[in-house]
């Protein structure tokens, strides 16, 4: 009898993979968006299984509560208001196959060569404090660079939106 964590892992993994297929192959783009909802939620669940609670909740807030809702917002604006149906067609299939195969190979190499931390996770561990400390000490530079890049992207988007 495998333990409950293993069973849950396989359930969530199955959900993530199957709904990812729907995201890619669905003909109706709103189904892709709704399936992405399940995929992203499943990933958050996997983080919780790893006791990475902060990461899980950030995943939900940023990807599901932020990015995906903007995606759906965009889809709603275009398909229902301007009468232009978004068609989900596959372009450049051959290069796409090569790129995906390349990414797959890189992932496999990373998977096999990384020295994984396989210690059992600590129950009720508070990860937020340590993540915060690391972000403002060891990883301060990448953290600041990321925020500046995001700020520039924000300003650029605002500028383009103003132009017309």
């Amino acid at each position: 009898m495998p333990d409950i964590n293993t069973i849950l892992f396989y359930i969530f993994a199955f959900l993530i993979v199957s709904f990812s297929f729907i995201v890619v192959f669905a003909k109706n783009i709103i189904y892709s968006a709704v399936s992405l909802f399940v995929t992203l939620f499943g990933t958050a669940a996997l983080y919780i299984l790893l006791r990475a609670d902060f990461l899980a909740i950030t995943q939900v807030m940023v990807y599901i509560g932020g990015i995906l809702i903007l995606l759906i917002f965009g889809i709603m604006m275009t398909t229902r208001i301007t009468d232009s149906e978004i068609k989900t067609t596959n372009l450049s299939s051959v290069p796409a196959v090569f790129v995906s195969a390349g990414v797959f190979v890189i992932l496999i190499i990373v998977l096999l060569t990384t020295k994984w931390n396989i210690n059992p996770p600590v129950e009720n561990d508070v990860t937020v404090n340590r993540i915060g400390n690391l972000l403002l000490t060891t990883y301060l530079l990448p953290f600041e660079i990321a925020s500046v890049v995001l700020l520039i992207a924000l300003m650029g988007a605002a500028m383009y939106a103003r132009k017309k």
Partner: protein
Amino acid sequence: MPAAVQYIIIPLVKVVLIQITLLIGVALTVWLERRTAGFIQDRYGPNRVGPFGLLQPVADVVKLFMKEDIVPEKANKFIHSLAPAISVTIALSTIAVIPFADPIQLFGSEFKLQIADVNIGILYILAMVSLGVYGVTLSGWASNNKYSLLGGLRSSAQMISYELSMGVAVLGIILVNGTFELDTIVQNQAGWKWNIILQPVGFLIFLTAAFAETNRTPFDLPEAEQELVGGYHTEYSSLKFALFFLSEYANVIVSACVITTLYLGGYQFPYLQTFGLSPVLVSILQIITFLIKIFIIVFFFIWIRWTVPRFRYDQLMVLGWKVMLPLALANLTITAIIVTLLK
């Protein structure tokens, strides 16, 4: 205590008890809202079914059960049915992290009066708030009705805008308390050290954002009757409409719980522990205190709804982005400076 009891049965009992209480609360809030509206508008309100009309919500539910469930022909059937389910699930699951009283000792083991004691309770609430928009947006899209769609669009823009100020306001609380855990935050507010006194501006911002997030007047643009018929739920009838109705009022109650927990001392009755009462009695009094505080906030929500007129859409956006967000950021900066200086 065996693991099965500790991890499955006790949480299940808590979930059932708290959800039933929440549902009863929803019925009472609906009744209270209609009676208060009647009082404010100088009329009676529902007073025929049961004593003082208290059974009116039950009668309404039975009526909604009997109604025909109409799905528009050109609607997206699957998402049309999915949307109310998402709404109600998210409305009911936010309450999981709210603590209702100090942990109590019973039969030699400690029980927390909270469904899930997570380390990041505040973030869980913010995440759930950010998910709340899905039900409204998807229902607006799936109905294939221009009024519904406009309601859905307004709602997503409004909720995304106010979420931001809400999150920044909550950061002030986190700075003052140094934790994301809700029960620690409540315990830090013992006596009169309520966060509303330490964070008055944060409280105002959070309260306003809570009104916007629950789509209540003066921010009820997603369902503005005069412009949008019924807004996002125009095309809903029968039980699906009941689910939207349920989630709206559940959201009001849960917001009241969150506001109480974060700013009004949660279940703390000032200096209750110093009276020398038995622990079980203390817990019961704490639960009653919590319920009274929630009642006051819910009543405030209702009072505002029947007093203040609706914002215009541009006023709503100006308030959200040009007033509340800068104010929240200023509040955060000043709090950060004070906290650093006092260390």
